[in-house]
């Protein structure tokens, strides 16, 4: 039997939602959509849209809002596909919104267990789409596939056991026919991984263990049995380099976070960028930003792929302003260091050696009494995205100028319990502050900064309109890309912990940012 109701409106047929890999690969050809976490595979978080620009941004105003139901930090970077926005929300929910009106088309909610082990709330940073399926990680470490048209569950696989401290907060990355997914739980002595799943069936095709285990190169960088509880998570979305067919994904801190006594050595592949073969998960290269980290300086932030001029030659760079306070430009085809320098005040290393390895100063580590160090455990920047504008060639980072008194404590591993070995106290001697900093991508040299009264916990986006959007505390703002001058701001009334995006709906440009428990969507009339 056929369904009784059929459509008799060929002129108005909306496109079926369908985003094959090739569309994401060629995201540059459809600037109106935002098809993956960072819009495209480069991680640049740059949109060529220019309807909203320096000339009219002062008239930017709210178009519609969407309010989440569960009160927790709202960190999503939505995706937008042909007039539908997909938003993941605290509390294991995903909603599909009509971008024209902001109204809900469908909503999926998955009951989370009550006995979660979390460091930082029931957050989720977004979904991925491939074909007509939406993929999202659940806070209890499952990967879930939904019909993009209806929100109906297609499959649900456990990545790891949440009772042991595993969770999932980052957006998946769809590459070829795989869904690549990281995990969280770095404060629970977990064993980190990056997984590749068959997008159709949910079957795990590969797992890259982020801790070099027995027989792996680098295993000798963990003393004793410390590798078994070494953490090294992967909780922010990586990028994909189509030219070399490589996934580049960042990894988190070794555990216990602040006491490295039991894990002598560099602790590979913690705080590293890892290049993986998307078909097999095999490691191609790695670069470790913070060998033997004792400050919880995860290096999971989304890196940025850019082609820039270095000494008269175009170099294929992967750039990252790292939580450890240094900016790094690497050759993304080899993982070799090109240039780097501090982008915030740091007091733990005298500089970088020729290979880019930080030269740690004597006694630059937490102590039982407490050791004053810059940057704080929040780092010179954190999980939220930096942005690169091909218009200016600049790398823009939301930087934190903040110190902390790091202390070392005992750490005994118990399954599913915090495994920290210390922590930090506030340093009262200097008031912390933040800044949007524009860095030369090839070198990390500061071009300009826009100072912020307090450190931010929110990301940036650059646009073809010559704008850099960012946030500080409860304010969302737009800066001039070339000078860093403030062009527009909006008081959102609650803290912003997220990255902005932009898209077209019926040919009109919108800007979206989560603030508090609302997704704010702006336009210019």
């Amino acid at each position: 039997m056929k369904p009784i109701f059929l459509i008799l409106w060929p002129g108005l047929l909306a496109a079926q939602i369908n985003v094959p890999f090739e569309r994401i690969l060629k995201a540059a050809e459809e600037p109106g959509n935002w098809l993956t976490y960072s819009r495209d595979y480069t991680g640049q978080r740059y949109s060529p849209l220019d309807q909203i620009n320096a000339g009219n941004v002062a008239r930017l105003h709210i178009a519609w809002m969407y309010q989440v139901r569960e009160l927790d930090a709202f960190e999503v970077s939505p995706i937008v596909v042909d007039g539908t926005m997909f938003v993941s929300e605290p509390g294991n929910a995903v909603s599909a919104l009509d971008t024209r009106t902001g109204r809900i088309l469908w909503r999926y909610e998955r009951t989370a267990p009550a006995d979660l082990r979390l460091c930082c709330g029931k957050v989720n940073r977004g979904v991925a789409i491939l074909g007509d399926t939406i993929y999202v990680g659940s806070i209890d470490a499952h990967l879930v596939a939904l019909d993009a048209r209806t929100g109906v569950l297609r499959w649900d696989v456990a990545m790891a056991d949440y009772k042991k401290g595993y969770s999932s907060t980052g957006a998946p990355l769809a590459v070829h026919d795989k869904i690549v997914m990281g995990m969280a739980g770095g404060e629970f002595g977990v064993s980190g991984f990056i997984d590749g799943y068959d997008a159709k069936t949910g079957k795990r095709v590969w797992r890259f263990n982020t801790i070099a285990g027995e027989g792996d190169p680098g295993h000798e960088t963990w003393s004793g049995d410390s590798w078994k509880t070494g953490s090294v998570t992967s909780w922010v979305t990586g990028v994909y380099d189509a030219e070399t067919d490589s996934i580049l994904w960042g990894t988190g801190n070794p555990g216990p976070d602040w006491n490295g006594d039991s894990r002598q050595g560099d602790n590979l592949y913690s705080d590293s960028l890892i290049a993986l073969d998307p078909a097999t998960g095999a490691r191609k290269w790695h670069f470790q930003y913070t060998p033997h980290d004792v400050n919880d300086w995860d290096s999971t932030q989304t890196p940025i792929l850019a082609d820039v001029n270095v000494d008269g030659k175009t170099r294929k760079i992967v750039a990252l302003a790292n939580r450890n306070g240094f900016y790094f430009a690497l050759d993304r085809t080899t993982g070799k260091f090109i240039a780097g320098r501090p982008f915030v005040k740091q007091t733990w290393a005298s500089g970088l050696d020729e290979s880019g390895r930080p030269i740690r100063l004597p006694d630059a580590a937490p102590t039982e009494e407490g050791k004053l160090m810059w940057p704080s455990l929040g780092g010179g920047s954190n999980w939220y995205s930096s942005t690169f504008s091909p218009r200016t060639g600049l790398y823009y980072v939301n930087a934190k100028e903040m110190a902390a008194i790091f202390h070392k404590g005992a750490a005994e591993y118990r399954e599913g319990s915090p495994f920290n070995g210390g922590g930090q106290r506030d340093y009262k001697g200097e008031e912390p502050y933040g800044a949007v900093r524009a860095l030369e991508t090839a070198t990390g040299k500061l071009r300009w900064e826009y100072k912020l009264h307090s450190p931010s916990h929110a990301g940036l986006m650059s646009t073809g309109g010559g704008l850099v959007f960012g946030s500080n505390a409860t304010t969302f703002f737009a800066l001039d890309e070339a000078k860093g001058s403030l062009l527009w701001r909006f008081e959102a009334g609650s803290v912003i912990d997220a990255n902005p995006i932009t898209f077209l709906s019926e040919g009109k440009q919108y800007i979206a940012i989560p603030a508090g428990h609302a997704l704010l969507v702006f336009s210019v009339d």
Partner: protein
Amino acid sequence: MLTRPKLRRAPDDVALVKILTDGIRGTEMPAGLDTMSEEEIRQTAAYVRSLGKIDPRPVPGNPEAGAALYRGKGNCAACHSLRGEGGVAGPDLTDIGERRSVDYIRESLVNPEAELPENYLLVSVTKNDGRSLKGVRLNEDSFSIQIRDSEGRSYSFWKTELTTIEKQRGKSGMPSYKSSLAPLELTDLVAYLASLKPSATGDTK
């Protein structure tokens, strides 16, 4: 359908008491706190749990034959999905055996308009230029309406763009199988649908 050991929304007793107290947002399940004391809520939770221990009634019919009818003669997959694979005109049936009783499933096949699922109100709208569209209503307020067609495409209209919005209350897009299936075939199809219980087979939900 509470006569099963594992409740989808209430994996543990804490969650069950919370549901009885607060209801389930976005569904017909009301908050119980207004009508029941805390003690009564605890007793109700215990009763609900006891239902999961009752041995289910045997379902007549041959589920394997019903599965063949689902895929073949009944053409159910044209409009319904299992695990998100299949049509989108009607509700997903992955766990229909958990959500609905045998009697309810039979009635839905014989007389689809006896009770309609949520979010499947059929609407027909006409645009200012005379063209019209039919689908199920996803959302509506004073100013706009969102509709999904039987192919899964979503549409959104400002009401100022529409001349008519016709709501076919009590109507279902589903045909009756009363005459198109023989009585034994119907019994087999019901047996198959009643067997769709992912939690009983240990499948992930």
